[in-house]
């Protein structure tokens, strides 16, 4: 489907509700009146087969006198984005909730309520999301008149959790501080004996105000903020940032830079997946396999060391290209190292996947059904293990992925075993991609000048992070600054999916299921 066809079709079907429409690159922007938004959204999902990938608000009271809410949908087969915008009158401060039609919208709407103080009318559950009891009501940080330096009073309110009553049903609180060096998150289990009836995850303990912080920052500073969203997704976040800035600037990044970006993105994926696989093995007390995979992960850090001397892969990217020619002269040693990793990983996987006790632990554990995965827009290995054959690298090809050869592994059972299999297969795909990139890398420039960015321009940047679909939205302000930077990492969509996958399993299996998703707490809570 071409974007003009889509535009025509939409305009005809919803001519009463659409106020204006403008296609821009592969993004179709439609201005919609708020009475029709629910109908359009649900038909976009059911008839056009689109998925809601981001939903956010913007405070445009200064220049337009209202708030705007953006609904971003992805048409994945054609690689199109459909962005609906609805204006919200500041004096009323309400907008219609679409969560009853599109479950994935529920979290975004709660986020908007917390950060902007706009009320989603008809939302099924109104509990606060981003801020806990100690943040005062009526303190809305993403409104532009909220100063960054203000220190809100400490509102000492108790957290509330949904409770399940019944004989023998009890709750166990876990966290927010956990054993081991992991991020903070509180999990409230409702149990009947060992089986879990319900899990409520109270996250958002690491709110750093990234979206507020980037308001008015220069393009350069915004880039550094994007690198610090989530430690192990540094490169992919910076890539999504660069992608949106480059779209706004309308420049074409040199091929050599595009290929190098693929190399780093796949290295990040490989390292992340190896860490997850080691974690899964350790959680079932399979020490041999865990340490073996950790050793291979150490080798992938050697690749990072060889390339840029840093395992976080920071300051590699740059809007307009990459900072240095990281690959030149290292081709042979890199390929030798990658082949070594591949061989050792093949041997290890062969042992692990033939261990019947290991298989017994991971099979049928933590099943995420396809229906729930689709409804919650679960992406990445978590979604692909539940039969969603979606990968941003194929649907919205970026960097050099369009000209490289790779497969997207898909499994249908949705259990821990499927996620492990998907991750294992992706590790091999990543290694093969990296070797391809090094072998076929074109010579030439590594960066182009960004030039001046016009104000009030906007674009989406989509990348496939190790955890899944990563959506960044940027709107530029005056004088080469950022007006709005909205980030939605895959963890935001996958956390609710995890809570569903846990139900019906027993408590000792929770760490294993959690590890098979391995979601980011910091990436979820900006």
């Amino acid at each position, binding site marked *: 489907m071409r974007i003009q066809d889509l535009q025509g079709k939409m305009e005809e079907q919803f001519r009463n509700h659409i106020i204006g429409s403008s296609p821009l690159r592969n993004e179709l922007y439609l201005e919609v009146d708020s009475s029709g938004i629910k109908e359009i959204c649900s038909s976009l999902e059911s008839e056009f087969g689109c998925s809601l990938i981001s939903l956010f608000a913007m405070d445009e009271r200064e220049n337009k006198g209202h708030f705007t809410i953006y609904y971003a949908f992805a048409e994945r087969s054609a690689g199109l984005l459909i962005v609906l915008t609805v204006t919200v009158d500041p004096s009323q401060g309400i907008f219609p909730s679409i969560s009853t039609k599109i479950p994935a919208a529920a979290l975004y709407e709660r986020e908007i309520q917390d950060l902007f103080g706009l009320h989603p009318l008809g939302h099924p559950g109104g509990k606060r999301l981003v801020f806990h009891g100690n943040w005062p009501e009526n303190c809305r940080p993403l409104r532009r008149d909220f100063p960054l330096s203000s220190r809100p009073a400490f509102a000492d309110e108790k957290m509330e959790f949904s409770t399940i009553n019944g004989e023998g049903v009890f709750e166990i609180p*876990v966290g927010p501080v956990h054993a081991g060096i992991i991020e903070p998150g509180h999990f409230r289990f409702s149990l009947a004996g060992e089986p879990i009836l319900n899990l409520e995850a109270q996250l958002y303990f690491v709110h750093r105000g990234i979206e507020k912080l980037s308001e008015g920052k220069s393009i350069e500073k915004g880039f550094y903020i994007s690198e610090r969203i989530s430690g192990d997704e540094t490169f992919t976040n910076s890539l999504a940032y660069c992608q949106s800035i480059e779209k706004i600037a309308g420049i074409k990044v040199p091929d050599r830079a595009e290929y190098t970006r693929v190399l780093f993105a796949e290295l990040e994926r490989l390292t992340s997946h190896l860490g997850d696989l080691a974690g899964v093995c350790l959680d079932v*007390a399979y020490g041999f396999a*865990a340490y073996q995979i950790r050793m291979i992960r150490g080798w992938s850090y050697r690749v990072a060391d060889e390339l840029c001397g840093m395992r976080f892969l920071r300051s590699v990217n740059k809007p307009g290209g990459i900072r240095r020619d990281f690959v030149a002269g290292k081709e042979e040693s890199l390929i030798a190292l990658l082949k070594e990793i591949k061989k050792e990983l093949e041997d290890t996987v062969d042992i692990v996947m033939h261990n019947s006790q290991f298989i017994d632990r991971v099979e049928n554990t933590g099943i995420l059904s396809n229906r729930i995965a689709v409804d919650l827009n679960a992406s990445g290995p978590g979604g692909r293990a539940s039969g969603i054959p979606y990968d941003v690298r194929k649907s919205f090809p970026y960097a050099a992925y369009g000209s490289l050869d790779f497969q997207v592994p898909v499994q249908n059972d949705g259990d821990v075993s499927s996620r492990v299999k998907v991750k294992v297969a992706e590790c091999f795909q990543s290694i093969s991609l990296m070797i391809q990139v090094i072998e076929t890398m074109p010579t030439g420039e590594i960066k182009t000048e960004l030039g001046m960015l016009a104000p009030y321009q906007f674009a989406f940047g989509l990348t496939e992070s190790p955890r899944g679909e990563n959506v960044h939205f940027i709107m530029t302000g005056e004088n080469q600054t950022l007006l709005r930077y909205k980030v939605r990492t895959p963890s935001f969509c996958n956390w609710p999916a995890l809570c569903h996958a846990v139900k019906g399993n027993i408590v000792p299996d929770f760490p294993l299921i959690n590890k098979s998703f391995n979601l980011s707490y910091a990436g979820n809570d900006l």
Partner: protein
Amino acid sequence: MIVIANNLIQLLVILLLAPMVDGIIKKCKSLSQKRQGSPVLQMYYDLFKLIRKESVVSDTASWIYKATPYIVFSTAAVGALLVPISTLMPSVQFSGDIILLFSLLALGRFFMCLAALDTGSTFGGMGSSREALISSLIEPSILLSIFTIGLIADSTSIHQMMRAMTEVGNPFLHPVYILTFLAMLIIILAETSRIPVDDPATHLELTMVHEAMLLEYSGRHLALMEYGAAVKQLILMTLVANLFLPMDQLIPFAGEGAFILSIALYAVRVIFLSVVIAITEISTVKFRFFSIPNLAALSFILSFLGFLQYFVLGR
């Protein structure tokens, strides 16, 4: 007099050797993971460190919480008095002392479960409920195994049973020994919280069994609890070493030299069993919690088959 001296030697050897068993198992596991691992003597250092540290006690804890470390350690230590490390010298014995031994260990466990519930923390309760489930599942197989050996030895005194086992020649020619030996190995894994029943190295509270009960303990209380667990582990290994791998009959001479050699041989067998346990831990994966009854059933069936074998084939 000699009897008492021998019992004291036996107690000392078990108390001194117990932390090392843990070190040997950990060392073997580290080597399988291409790691150097902690020193074999690490547990001694840890115990020494913990004993000098302050013990933090929760405000809500009752006397049970404070008394439990002493009960756990002293039941294990008294248990050590009952288990001869060598059959060459007489030691304190009476009929039914093996039942007393397992009752003492059960007493320690009972208080450990209570203490874990006492502070009202999240994980303690989960740990005790799981521990109670596992121990009640494994108990039938313990009783059946020791009574089978008791039938062969015609006694329920540990010393008598061990002596009887030295006289049977090659125990591996009799199916009854092999079956009860395997049953006892599974019992050791379950009783000492090893993989596949529990993971002693885990940091994940939600999956813990034994460790979850110790989470609230610190300082010298923790030292006593861990020491008690190590002693209990060695007691069980001593039983297996002297009942199923008897070597005292191989010593051709008598006297003090024979006694010392017998203790040395005992140490060799303990090290051997530690390596066997380490290899089991390395090569298996922790079972799904609700699969543990299958393991307990396997142990019970093995001991029951041994029991039947005794009636069919005799000794």
